[in-house]
């Protein structure tokens, strides 16, 4: 049985590798570092999608990290015990909502809100940045980042909670004994020792965001482009596969999409491995 698992993973990897060879042969290193994705002219490269993937995921992390760490602290340090379980359940439910439902909500609720309220507001507040420029589409990197943030909050929160829970009470008592206030105790006795765990949780959340498909496809605007504005339409590696795979009509196009898939696979496996290694080391230290 165990063999099945290993063979399966190797098969997935080999399939993507062999089938994306034509794209790598046709464009060489340019396939990874080129900026153009023009199916009509048979020019394909990954960089624009890598950009969209990484920017939207980092945006998501930026929004989600303070919220998740705050929630984890609240759950472990401040929460009255009767509230703890229901609150945990609610946050975990965020992870149970299907991606396509988030996407639907994103199209009809979040995107109009971003278009009508958030973007004009930010553009008015920071007129000199190029970050908030452009016509208000409502769909784009920023909206995708928001949706992704909601989707990775449960991941980061639950791992951070686990990390904070495993910190010995001795630390907290020590800080209190030295006259630290509630916040100082949290800062020195919880956040300090738990920092590497929080980092691992964030990386794991990032890994989830990178592979997320449907919700992002529905709100990112689907345009292969590298633009400085956070409100411009973009595309991620996952969204371009979802959009184009069923209808790509040249062998090179298909092979390039599989190449995108390969890059996505390597990226998510790498991100996840890093975070697992950190978590594993944190666990070994605390036990």
């Amino acid at each position, binding site marked *: 049985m165990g063999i099945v698992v290993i063979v399966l993973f190797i098969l*997935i990897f080999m399939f993507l590798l062999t089938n994306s060879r034509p794209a790598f042969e046709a464009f060489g290193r340019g396939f990874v570092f080129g900026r153009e994705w023009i199916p009509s002219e048979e020019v394909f490269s990954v960089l624009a999608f890598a950009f969209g993937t990484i920017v939207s995921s980092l945006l998501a992390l930026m929004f989600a990290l303070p919220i998740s760490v705050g929630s984890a602290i609240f759950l472990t340090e401040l929460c009255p015990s009767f509230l703890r379980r229901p609150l945990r359940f609610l946050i975990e439910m965020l992870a149970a909502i*299907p*991606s396509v439902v988030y996407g*639907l*909500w994103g199209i009809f609720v979040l995107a109009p809100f971003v278009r009508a309220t958030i973007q004009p507001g930010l553009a008015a507040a920071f007129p000199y940045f190029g970050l908030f420029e452009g016509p208000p589409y409502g769909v784009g990197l920023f909206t995708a980042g928001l949706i992704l943030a909601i989707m990775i909050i449960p991941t980061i929160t639950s791992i951070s909670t686990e990390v904070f829970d495993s910190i010995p009470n001795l630390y907290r008592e020590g800080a209190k004994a030295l006259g630290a206030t509630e916040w100082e105790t949290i800062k020195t006795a919880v956040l300090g020792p738990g920092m590497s765990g929080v980092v691992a949780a964030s990386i794991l959340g990032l890994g989830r965001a990178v592979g997320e498909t449907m919700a992002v496809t529905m709100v990112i605007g689907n345009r292969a482009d590298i633009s400085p504005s956070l409100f411009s339409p973009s595309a991620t590696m996952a969204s371009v596969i979802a959009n184009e795979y069923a209808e790509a009509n040249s062998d090179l196009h298909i092979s390039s999409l599989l190449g995108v898939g390969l890059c996505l696979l390597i990226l998510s496996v790498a991100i996840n491995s890093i975070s697992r290694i950190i978590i594993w080391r944190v666990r070994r230290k605390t036990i």
Partner: protein
Amino acid sequence: MASAKKDYLNSASIQRMAKIRKIKSVFMTFLIGVLTGVAVLPLFLVFIFVIRNGLPAMNIEFFTSLPAPVGQPGGGMANALVGSLIMVAIAGLIAVPVGVLVGVLLSEYREDKFPSVVRFVVDLLISVPSIVIGLFAYALVVVPMKSFSGWAGISALSIIMFPPIVKATEEVLRLVPNSVREAGLALGLSRWRVSIYVVLKGSRSAVTTGVILALARVAGETAPLLFTAFGNRFWPTSLSQPMPSLPVQIYTYAISPFSDWHRQAWAGAFLLLMVVFIINVLARVLLTRGSGGSRT
């Protein structure tokens, strides 16, 4: 010496300092509370909108009829509902036994080298984006069969489904104290019999919980079905034909320009969300029962 210290403690600046620290602490704890509120806010927002738009859109037609021709109002998602149920069920039949057995292997043979390699690979598999699994299923099933099919969708779903089941099973079985295993071995049972008949059977409700949660997660998967099961406007009659599914139908309807389709997309989302929510609540209830409520 002691009095000097007291003076120092009473000095106004220290007092002020303490006050500032206190205020800062109150402010920060308040902020943490606010952040927690922000974390659960989206859940309520999504639920409110899905219920508000989806509940009124529910009607008999939605549950009983096939989709209407493009752009015409009416019709329903009955075929997609059935298609989803079939695919998730068969994927479950494939993935659950494999997942549980691998889980048993990982937890019961901890000290061997091979399981730790398997464990590492299972973690890797969990991190593979579902759309990539969809690509793989396309190559595995669609290309040789020369047709989009229910089977392709099922193979994608079962590959996505089994790693979480492995993890869940392993975690549950690890909680079983070693004395139980030793008791079984002392009775002269062989090692694998102890694993299956004593350890696994003893924690079956908790394992079931993990399985049900995995089923619920897979029920909402869309991306890997886009180019495997594809879609179908008729009743799913054969697994070697394209298969309709609820998530793909919701997606197609959501990005369409027809308001009646939007209405049905909300209805579909409402249904999907309710199923997932109820399953989750039930699973938590089982889980707290299964392990004495100490683990939340």
